[in-house]
């Protein structure tokens, strides 16, 4: 930021005129979202989407893919030269999967940033308040109850996972309120730890009693971006949209909350209400994402932190950029998951963990160096 020379102190009627002359850089928040970063985010999303659609176990030539994509636009007629089978692979397998990846990645990253802001804790992730453990129990119960997953329109697995996730959050909230009247963040986090431990124990117990389904359960736990046409996308789209909108519109308030509950209240923010709204929105969105994709870890931490390192501390930048880069990141990791051992698929949670662990080391080194 440029430092301006002190201009004559002016009070009274002339004050307005002096402020008008001030150089633009001195008169705008440093934390605002810069156009350059926004553009970079959009470019990342588009590039990742194209890569995700064009690459896969089956070789589809890129120009033909691009033509096929453009052909879908109204009033555009571009024969792509792809066979019916390749087109089916493209539109019914790859595109929905990429779109799902964008939605899930965007949601997890944004929810993670929201949690970090509302708890003022850089290690907060979307699974903090018992969401992961709750979803795990729900999914495990659905899998071991043997309800067949063949009938997709009433697929119980995402519903059970979603319900479990919400149950986890409700349990955490209820526990923290009953223990500490003043809804402090510390008691919420601790309650989340207790609820997660309990639910995980229940889940492990159920698993051990139904050991033949252990592979299915673990496959779900490590996360998969499998799609059946556009069903999953349609299922979670409303939740992701609503949740993201709520989180994004609260970006200024998250910055204010950064000075602590007491000061923020003195500055005029209804802190408890804001915290509830953000936690509910982030939890709903995360529960939806988890319901269709399992537990994909690290996205909610890696992406917001990277964005902070690059674009600054303010949630005015971190939230929207986490949304964009989170989506791009998810599509790229899914690409790795699909290609690394083709045609087999690595569970996507494994890929994000492989990337996440060294990333933490880098972040730690950067912080201790600065």
């Amino acid at each position, binding site marked *: 930021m440029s*430092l301006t*020379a002190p201009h004559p102190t002016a009070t009274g009627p002339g004050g307005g005129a002096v402020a008008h002359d001030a150089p633009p850089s001195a008169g705008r928040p440093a934390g605002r979202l810069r156009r350059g970063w926004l553009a970079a985010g959009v470019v990342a999303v588009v590039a990742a989407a194209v890569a995700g659609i064009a690459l896969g176990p089956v070789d589809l030539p890129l120009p033909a893919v691009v033509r096929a994509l453009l052909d879908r636009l109204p009033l555009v007629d571009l024969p792509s030269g792809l066979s019916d089978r390749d087109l089916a692979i493209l539109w019914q397998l790859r595109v929905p999967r990429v779109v799902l990846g964008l939605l899930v990645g965007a949601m997890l990253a944004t929810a993670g940033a929201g949690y970090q802001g509302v708890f003022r804790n850089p290690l907060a992730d979307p699974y903090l308040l018992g969401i992961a453990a709750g979803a795990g129990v729900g999914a495990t119960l659905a899998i071991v109850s043997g309800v067949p997953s063949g009938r997709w329109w009433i697929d119980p697995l995402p519903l059970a996972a979603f319900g479990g996730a919400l149950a986890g959050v409700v349990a955490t909230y209820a526990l923290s309120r009953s223990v500490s009247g003043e809804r402090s963040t510390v008691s919420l986090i601790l309650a989340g730890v207790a609820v997660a431990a309990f639910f995980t124990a229940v889940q492990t117990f159920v698993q051990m009693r139904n050991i033949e389904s252990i592979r299915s359960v673990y496959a779900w736990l490590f996360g998969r971006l499998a799609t059946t046409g556009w069903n999953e996308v349609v299922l979670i789209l409303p939740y992701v949209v609503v949740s993201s909108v709520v989180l994004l519109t609260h970006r*200024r308030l998250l910055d204010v909350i950064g000075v602590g509950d007491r000061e923020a209240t*003195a500055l005029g923010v209804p802190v408890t209400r804001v915290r509830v709204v953000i936690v509910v929105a982030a939890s709903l969105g995360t529960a939806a994402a988890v319901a269709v994709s399992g537990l994909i870890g690290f996205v909610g931490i890696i992406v917001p932190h990277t964005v902070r390192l690059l674009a600054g501390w303010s949630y005015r930048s971190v939230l929207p950029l986490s949304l964009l880069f989170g989506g791009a990141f998810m599509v790229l990791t899914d690409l790795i998951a699909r290609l690394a051992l083709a045609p087999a698929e690595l569970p996507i949670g494994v890929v994000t963990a492989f990337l996440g662990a060294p990333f933490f080391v880098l972040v730690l080194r950067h912080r201790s160096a600065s």
Partner: protein
Amino acid sequence: MSGATADRTRHATHPVDGHADLAMTGVRVTYGDHTAVDDVTLRVPTGGWTALIGPNGAGKTSLLHAVSGAVRARGTVAVGGADLAGAHPRRRARHVALVPQRPVIPEAMTVFDYVLLGRTAHLTYLAVETAADLHVVTDVLDRLDLTAFTGRPVQALSGGEQQRVVLARALAQETPVLLLDEPTSGLDIGHRQHVLDLVDRLRRECELTVLAAMHDLTLAAQYADRLVLLDGGRVAADGDPADVLTRQRIADHFDAEVHVVTAPDGGLALIPARTTPADRG
């Protein structure tokens, strides 16, 4: 600039004309079993400066937090006759601004953005700052000679400069009442004077009503119109500095021996009296 903007700047720190007195009745603050503030009643007239004095743990900070709404309290707090009890935090923050003793400085936040936080009370829930808000901030920074630091991280500033920044944030809030919690702690003798002179100047220019917790009794006597002595959460004395600062009272409440003298400019000064013999010469 249009007349509207000029008007706005003129009233930049005083949106409430006339009645800006701070009156509190029966204020109680409890943390669990511990009562930090017990039935405090006091009034600061419009444009006045009242200093809260008292030993450590007397409840000064808790009282200020209660007035600003940072902690929940019983009793009534009214500004200009308007009762703030149960008010939405935003409404309260348009009447009362707090300069905390140990402010939390978010990492890497710049001076401009930190002062901009003061505009929170003037923005609706999800609104973003307008150009008018940015002008207020620039103006306040100018007023406090902080323009040179606009883009620097607050953490990089010295103690005295940070103190001015926090004060700037409170001023950007444009409230009629200003609460200060130990504004001189951690500052050297020169910066103490500068800060208090600044507050005094602003008080007169903008007709601010000031309630400040102060631990330096001499400075309190010099700058404040009235002193309120708190001990154990209760008001032990309330009046002119000369009436409140007696040798006996200091001994009773602070367990300290002092000489109360009149300074050359007419104000009071407290000189500590050594209880152990000085070995000089």
